[in-house]
């Protein structure tokens, strides 16, 4: 058996009293993919940040090819050949795609930045990931998923011996994930060690050779993937067994609640029409970049459609800005929760209460106690891991931040709830909790529009499934009609 290239033992890290890592242990082997799994807040990203020199470990032992090393800075990590795709999008919006890829190591000629080579190399790497991305484009123009792809390209650009991927597939759909896995297998064949973090078990069993499980900051198991089952992994992760993953509540479907007719906007989407009934969960499937989020942003008033009608309960709505949509009872849980969803510097309680302030205030004054009570209720329901509702959002783990943003919109009691990738980055246990809450919402006669790139989720939860491709609706399936093949075909067939 080969020796691990990187080996961690007893690594610890605390943030102002919060113990993020208690016993970080993992071994990475050249030519193998090791999956790191654990609930939201288990300490996975903290470990990644220690390995990439963003954080310093408080204690513990890190060995590189058997030699103890001190990482300490991003430069040192780079010298050891450690490269990472971080969970949050760490990109430069006003720099070009090419420069974003090569930001740590720009190609040079006689000491000067060699733009031509940089673009060319970027083009070659992007050709495999998404040929539609032009290396000269400013990053700002890319979708969330494409920004993720650029970060993947960044990790591939240098000759990294250890590639770390912290939830790289969270924003990607089926096909992009396949493409990513092709690349992962190639990296493996080239003898690189890969650390792969994901909450999706299909992916872990598809791509990983080994696993390591963290619970509450401590390693609770390591081994070979072929020796374990999904249920065993889950049991290690949560310390108990988790039942049914898609608890579909059967709700009687009522009359039409919401209707969109002929919605078009510029070159984003055209002629989108659909209805939503009371008690219905409407799934919207498509490849990344199909225009699904753009349609929802237009409905919510974040952008203005060129044409089209929006009706709620038979009344035509004039939505000019998100306030109008919120006032009418439409809520939107955005896909990019870091940028669009929450105020990172604010405490959890304020974040959750923000769009519901009018219910919580009395004659213009906030009622703090109600704000806390509301927040605490959702923290329990969604199993948000935090030291208290006064903690700042930026201090939560990625998955727990997602939950706060979901809670914030659920708390507005919307009539129509639009959720863009609702379970992105959320662990198994909390996923079930989100699904159950969605069931409770529709049981009250409300409607949910759920954008999702996860086929099992769409098929498991939606009563009806719309499929978008290239800015247009291409197909509609009822729950009974839908098969994975037919949905994927509608999403990809040209």
């Amino acid at each position: 058996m080969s020796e691990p290239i990187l080996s961690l033992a007893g690594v610890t890290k605390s943030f102002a009293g919060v113990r993020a890592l208690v016993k970080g242990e993992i071994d990475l082997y050249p030519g193998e993919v090791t999956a790191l799994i654990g609930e939201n807040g288990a300490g996975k990203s903290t470990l990644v940040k220690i390995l990439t020199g963003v954080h310093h470990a408080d204690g513990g032992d890190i060995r590189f090819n058997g030699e103890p090393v001190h990482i300490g800075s991003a430069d040192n990590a780079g010298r050891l050949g450690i490269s990472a795709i971080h969970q949050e999008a760490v990109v430069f919006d006003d720099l070009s795609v090419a420069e974003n890829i090569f930001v740590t190591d720009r190609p040079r000629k006689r000491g000067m930045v060699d733009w031509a080579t940089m673009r060319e190399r970027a083009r070659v790497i992007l050709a495999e990931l998404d040929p539609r991305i032009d290396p000269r484009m400013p990053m700002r123009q890319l979708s969330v998923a494409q920004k993720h792809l650029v970060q993947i390209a960044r990790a591939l650009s240098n000759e990294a011996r250890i590639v770390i991927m912290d939830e790289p597939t969270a924003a990607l759909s089926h096909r992009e994930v396949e493409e990513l896995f092709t690349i992962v297998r190639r990296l493996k064949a080239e003898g690189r060690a890969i650390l792969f973090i994901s909450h999706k078990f299909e992916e872990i069993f598809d791509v990983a050779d080994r696993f390591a499980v963290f619970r509450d900051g401590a390693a609770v198991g390591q081994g070979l993937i072929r020796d374990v089952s999904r249920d065993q992994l889950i049991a290690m992760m949560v310390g108990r067994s988790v039942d049914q993953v898609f608890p579909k509540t059967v709700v009687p479907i009522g009359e039409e609640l919401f209707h969109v007719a002929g919605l078009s906007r510029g070159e984003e989407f055209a002629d989108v029409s659909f209805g939503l009934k009371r008690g219905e969960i409407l799934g919207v499937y498509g490849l990344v970049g199909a225009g699904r989020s753009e349609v929802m942003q237009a409905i919510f008033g974040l952008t203005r459609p060129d044409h089209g009608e929006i009706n709620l309960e038979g009344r035509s709505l004039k939505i000019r800005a998100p306030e109008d949509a919120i006032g009418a009872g439409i809520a939107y849980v955005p896909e990019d929760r870091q940028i669009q969803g929450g105020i990172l510097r604010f405490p959890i309680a304020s974040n959750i209460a923000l769009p519901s302030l009018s219910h919580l205030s009395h004659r213009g004054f906030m009622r703090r106690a109600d704000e806390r009570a509301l927040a605490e209720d959702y923290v329990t329901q969604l199993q948000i891991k935090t030291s208290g509702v006064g903690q700042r959002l930026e201090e939560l783990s990625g998955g727990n931040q997602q939950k706060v943003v979901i809670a914030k919109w659920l708390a507005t009691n919307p009539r129509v709830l639009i959720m863009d990738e609702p379970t992105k980055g959320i662990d198994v246990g909390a996923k079930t909790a989100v699904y159950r809450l969605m069931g409770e919402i529709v049981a009250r006669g409300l409607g949910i529009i759920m954008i999702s790139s996860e086929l099992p989720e769409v098929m498991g939860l939606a009563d009806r499934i719309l499929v978008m491709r290239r800015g247009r609706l291409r197909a509609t399936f009822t729950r009974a009609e839908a098969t994975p093949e037919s949905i994927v075909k509608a999403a990809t067939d040209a």
Partner: protein
Amino acid sequence: MPKIFGARRGLPHEVGLGLLTLALLALVTIAFPRFLVIDNLKSLVDDTALLIMLAVGEMFVLLTRGVDLSVAANAALTGMVVALFNAHYPGAGILPVIVIAIVMGAALGLFNGFLVWKVRIPSIVVTLGTLSVYRGCVYLVSGGAWVNSGQMSPFFLSFVRFPILGISVLSWIGLLVAVLAFLFLRFTIAGRNLYAAGNNPNAAGYAGIDVGRMQCLAFVLSGAIAGLAGYLWVARFAVAYTDVASGFELQVIAACVIGGVSITGGVGGVVGVVIGGLFLGIIKNALPVVGISPFFQMAVSGFVITVAVILNAGSYRKNHGRKILERAEASS
């Protein structure tokens, strides 16, 4: 593969601003042909060269999400010091004068940068303080006295005026600073990291870029340029005193903002700043020619600056949306 993005990228912001500046020049010239008189143009170019130099320095700081309010005070102090040096060592020649100006300016910039980087005080607070400190130092070193042209040696005064191809050395230096700054920002790793640090400090940290160090570097560059401008200023106007370039930092920042440098960091470039400086210079020089009273001049130039800034901000906010629909379908 169909190309979805990048098919039609908007014209760069500099083109619009350049056209606006040309239109302004044409307008003024049509109304007052006297404006295009050679002497007037020369003084316009010389004035503007100083503004552009200082604005280029300021741009470095703005790019890293800071602001340098001390540039004009730095220029005044450095200008006074080199004028006194020249008065004491009239035979030293031009080279020591320029070296002293640059090194001293850079040192004053380093002081700002150090406080921002290591002591972590916001740049607006730091430079609001050093703005007064540096001005106070002018008074200290000069004892409040003026250094007049009579006390300056001939080389000190004539160097900046010496014409090459009909253009003064002063203007050539302004051009040289702009070109060097352009090359630095476009082709060096440090220059690119300056953009990255200002565009997203968090992401820059992940990429191993020391944001504080980049901010400090920006202040040193800004200070070095301000120091050099200090000598040029004092030599051009043939006098050094406490209030040299008093309040000029506001025009410098205005030139940057008109030129498309974002106050929130990471966006902007030398070309825009140069055009922004020209735009402002034309207005400043045109108003007296037009014969507007000095009090009204301030209001008019303020108004024009505001309009230019608003036009500018608008061009950033425009959201064109992405191109998702197939080309053939978009038109249907």
